[in-house]
């Protein structure tokens, strides 16, 4: 056997976990157990049940819940017949896709400003984090009702008109609405600022010093040192922002789901709302996946090469095996043929 074969065999062989690894696994599981129990009962089980509900039409009667299995009926009805859901979903998607980058970039800028040595830094940080404790409560609803969360002085009509010149109508409205709700967008960035700050503070200052010694400008330092180092935190912030926007009480789709849940009409009700929630969650997951795919850290060159070499090695080993197998098979065939022609003079060697 060649050396390559041996390596290929070794890598494919299953390594049995030793006692230490087993013990580690057990402690790991022990640490997560409380969380698993909670998650099973209140997340996994309830999500499963709600999926089952989504496939049913549920009516609340004095005798209890009445299930009628409708299969995908709820889903098709939502997508084809519901006048509110699809337009609101589209509006939600555009506004989310537009506002997430704004929030994250704004948070990064503020975090970088706050990271510098300035006076009253503590005060500044306090103020920038404060909206976090406001926007998640019922207070936010009140503020929005009062119109305090929008800039009424900005004429959104003018922006829409200006933009519709080179953008499709729906995009233009979405962008001008974004301008209108700019304050809300900025209020949502408290936690993100914090996460960025902690990431920025962990960057070794000697790296900047080294870069400056070699003549790097602040701009270059930002692109070559700051951004690559905080990349995982950018992803974290993007995911956090999307989840926050999607689960917010201000979200119109959440209100829609709630309304249809408690509506007494024949075709709506709990099953219908569950189906709606599932569809909505699917869309949210999709948005997160797309953003994550855009931002996912690429493996570095060395790792990629190692992976490629391993793959090639496996391929070669497979080829060798294939040839070996074919050889055996052919030998058998020849043997068979020879037996069949026992009395023939031909013995397969080519000469008579």
């Amino acid at each position, binding site marked *: 056997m060649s050396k390559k074969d041996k390596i290929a065999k070794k890598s494919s062989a299953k390594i049995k976990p030793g006692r230490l690894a087993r013990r580690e696994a057990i402690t790991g599981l022990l640490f997560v157990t409380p*969380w698993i129990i909670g998650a099973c009962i209140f997340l996994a089980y309830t999500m499963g049940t709600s999926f089952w509900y989504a496939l049913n039409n549920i009516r609340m009667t004095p005798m209890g819940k009445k299930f009628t299995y409708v299969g995908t009926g709820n889903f098709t009805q939502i997508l084809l017949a519901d006048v509110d859901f699809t337009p609101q979903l589209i509006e939600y998607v555009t506004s989310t896709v537009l506002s997430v980058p704004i929030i994250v970039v704004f948070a990064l800028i503020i975090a970088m400003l706050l*990271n510098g040595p300035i006076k009253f830094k503590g005060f*500044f940080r306090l103020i920038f984090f404060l909206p976090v404790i*406001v926007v998640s409560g019922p207070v936010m609803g009140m503020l929005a009702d*009062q119109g305090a969360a929008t800039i009424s002085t900005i004429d959104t009509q003018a922006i829409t008109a200006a933009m519709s010149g080179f953008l499709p109508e729906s995009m233009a409205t979405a962008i001008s609405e974004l301008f209108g709700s700019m304050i809300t967008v900025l209020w949502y960035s408290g936690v993100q600022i914090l*996460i960025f700050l902690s990431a920025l*503070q962990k960057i070794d200052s000697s790296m900047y010093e080294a870069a400056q010694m070699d003549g790097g400008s602040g701009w270059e330092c930002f692109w070559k040192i700051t951004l690559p180092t905080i990349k995982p935190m950018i992803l974290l912030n993007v995911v956090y922002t999307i989840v926050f926007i999607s689960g917010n009480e201000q979200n119109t789709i959440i209100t829609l789901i709630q309304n249809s849940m408690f509506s007494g009409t024949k075709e709506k009700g709990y099953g219908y709302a569950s189906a709606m929630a599932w569809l909505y969650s699917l869309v949210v997951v999709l948005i997160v996946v797309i953003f994550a795919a855009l931002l996912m850290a690429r493996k570095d060159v060395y790792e990629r090469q190692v992976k490629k070499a391993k793959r090639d090695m496996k391929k070669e080993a497979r080829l060798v095996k294939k040839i070996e197998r074919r050889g055996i098979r052919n030998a058998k065939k020849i043997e068979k043929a020879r037996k069949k022609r026992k009395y023939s003079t031909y013995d397969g060697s080519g000469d008579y």
Partner: protein
Amino acid sequence: MAYKGHRINPKGFEKSQIKIILLLLPLIIFMALPIVYIINHAFKPMEELFAFPPNFFVRNPTLDNFTALIKASRTAGIPMSRYVFNSLIITSVTIVLSLLFTTMAAFALSKIRFRAKYVLMDINQAAMMFVATAVLIPRYLVMTFTGTINTYVAHILPLLAVPVALFLVKQFVDQVPDSLLEAAYMDGASDRQVYTKIIIPMIKPAIATAAIMVFQQVWTNMETSNYFVNDDSLKTLTFYMNTLANANNTVAGQGMSAAAALIMFIPNLVLFILLQNNVMNTMATSGIK
């Protein structure tokens, strides 16, 4: 550049700071708007509450809204202190337990190798993006099945597992270098010791942030009071404040709800100011590079 040290503010004031401060000041005004608004709104007399266009600042501050609120609570059967007590118990227990579970799970999911780790993480991610309202009735069924309806447990259990907090804390645990843990293990530390002596102190800022988030969620939560608890004496302060503002006629209710909003907001502010040192210092002093 990264500023290292225990004190946030630099000692001196330099001219180079002026441009940063000038940049930050207008933004500060934006960010401080909601708080200013809440405080102003609570002191507005009736005619200013309904003024159109609405005023941002109060002109003739009064305490009418607060007195109306107190008067309304006197006529109710159950004293307000009962609701305050309920809210305090529920909030503190939930925060302590959920932070404990969250940090433990984050430690294990991030640093310990075991089977099904990634599946668990994926479940958490999926749960994070799921609409909470959709699982209301299944939750109710679980509650009735376990017989926890109409108890304090009904308030606490549904809010214990906070997927977003776990996600956040886990990201911070990921940042703790493995070599630090290895050094501890080499010196004979057990898993429990590593968890309490290394992980917890190092991720303090994340814990403080998660604490504020969990507090938010529990304190402002009305879902559990609405759906899982029928006994009026076991409901929370938030629920009570909300009913007070809504039960009376809507015109008078406006002023009361403004006052209630301020009262509900103050604990948030207090907790935040208590924790802010931890949150703000973030990881600068924890020695991770």
